[in-house]
């Protein structure tokens, strides 16, 4: 992202924000409420159009003029802040809908599940530890399990870049630990951007951290250097 700005009714939600994420990097983004974390994700996924700036993906693709579906099909997967899975569909069905490719109407009308599809679904079920729950309606899962299912749905799409918005909100300690492991292992094959409030969780990811404040980057570095940064302390603790 380079020099991106967006404002709503005169309020600058994102102000000349520049952020670069490398391939297979795990990046955490923290910042106080209203720092523009979620808006930034909205811009990358095409939900919100910025007033200025460019969003370049994979060294050459400009995402600004593309639709949400086009961006998703480029390999950018997003987990929403509030877990959004299909509550009335089974866990298996949720993953089936997320399978990579076959996005056209008629492909879906005459869709047949191949054994490779099934293998892929089983593999993801394993990764997100929901093998035993595959038949249950997603709505019956615990909050943490829904978050994992949503991450699983992202994995089904074989994304290159995963945008994960507050993955451990409302999770128990054990669930958070499992999530940290999950995200770290994912970063071996995918670029992962995590937005999170939970400092302990961000520390457990042990990676590069970006601090956002009032729509722009305040500091960047590993967790220790960021925590000792004078500006960051001011923003978090108040002047």
């Amino acid at each position: 992202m380079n020099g991106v700005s967006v404002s709503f009714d005169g309020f600058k939600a994102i102000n000349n924000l520049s952020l670069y994420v490398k391939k297979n990097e795990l990046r955490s983004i923290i910042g106080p409420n209203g720092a523009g974390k979620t808006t930034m994700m909205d811009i990358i996924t095409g939900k919100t159009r910025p007033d200025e700036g460019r969003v370049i993906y994979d060294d050459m693709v400009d995402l600004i003029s593309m639709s949400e579906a086009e961006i998703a099909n480029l390999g950018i997967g997003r987990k929403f802040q509030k877990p959004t899975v299909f509550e009335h569909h089974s866990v298996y069905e949720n993953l089936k809908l997320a399978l990579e490719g076959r996005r056209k109407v008629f492909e879906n009308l005459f869709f047949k599940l191949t054994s490779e599809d099934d293998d892929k679904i089983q593999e993801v079920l394993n990764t997100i530890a929901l093998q035993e729950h595959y038949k249950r309606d997603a709505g019956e899962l615990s909050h943490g399990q829904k978050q994992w299912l949503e991450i699983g749905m992202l994995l089904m799409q074989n994304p290159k870049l995963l945008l994960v918005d507050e993955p451990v909100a409302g999770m128990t300690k054990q669930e958070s630990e499992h999530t940290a492991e999950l995200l770290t292992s994912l970063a071996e094959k995918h670029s992962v951007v995590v937005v999170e409030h939970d400092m302990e969780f961000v520390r457990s990811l042990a990676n590069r951290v970006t601090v956002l404040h009032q729509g722009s980057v305040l500091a960047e570095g590993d967790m220790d250097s960021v925590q000792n940064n004078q500006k960051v302390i001011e923003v978090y603790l108040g002047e």
Partner: protein
Amino acid sequence: MMKYKPLIFRLLENDKGGKYFIAILLLLMIVVPTCNLLIPESSVFYISTYVVTLLGKYLTYALLAISLDLVWGYLGILSLGHGAFFGLGGYAMGMYLMRQIGDRGVYGNPILPDFMVFLDYKELPWFWHGFDQFWLAMLMVFIVPGLLAFVFGWLAFRSRVTGVYLSIITQALTYALMLAFFRNDLGFGGNNGLTDFKEILGFDLQSDYTRNALFVCSAIAVALGYFICRFIVDSRLGSLITAIRDSEGRVRALGYRDEYIKLFVFVVSAMLAGVAGALYVPQVGIINPGEFSPINSIEMVIWVAMGGRGTLYGAALGAIVVNFAKTYFTAAAPEVWLFMLGGLFVVVTLFLPHGIIGAIKKISAMKSKKTKASVEAQKLNISN
């Protein structure tokens, strides 16, 4: 090895309600014509031609209800304008039937229908050409409602109009059509609509055989419509359709073009509604702009809610039950019918959120729970 089964059986495999529904339709297809044509009038089993036609009309409503359930119960779009598609299908059929009258009209004009002679038309308007051909009229039964749904849906879904706003514009759509069709200069007979039909495909519309044939055709159309909708909702597309209903943003984030999926479903539904209209018109003998009136479209919603939405057969059941009640009460106590209809809607919304089918499912689930519990209690007794 998987044994090959015909598609129809595969579709009904896990669809208990559908099995009953199709069985009842098949039974009606055999019993009704038999009781009308082969049994003497003096017998108690005799079914009068009036009843055959009435049942045929109910079946066309059932098809209409199924088409509405597809968009409302599954896709989550509450269409308050499905009467528009029904009416357009009806008008396409009506135009064919008008041209079939030929020179047997009151004015005896071999080309122009009576109302055109009366309104001083010099020649047939361009859009009436070709409607003397049955195949073209039937094509139009699909194309006209389908095209309208396509254009309307294209505009509405692309600009992401949803919820109440979408419902209101569907209502406006049918209202606009009603006003347009009321006009004499539109060329569809204005206020009086199209009527005085004589023949369909050369068969006398008044004959018992034609009436029975139309009844059977309606039953077949309902069954086919049911299978088409069942095929759609059972496919992965069907899964996506309910996913759009429940969480549209997630569907989009997965990379689907939700507007195309909605458009497809809406167009299929409109075409089915058009077929229902086309079968309705020869049986009731008239089509006029009243079919486009908003109240009709709202009534259809009540049928579906009453029967139980999101089941397809429930919608058909609701259409038949409500219309049976309507036929009965508008004859027995015409002044109370509208109050009953309103009351029905209140009762269904408050006490039967999933309609008749939902209530039946609930009762049978309670029963099986009870038997399960009693079986387990017995087991406990034995082990104790």
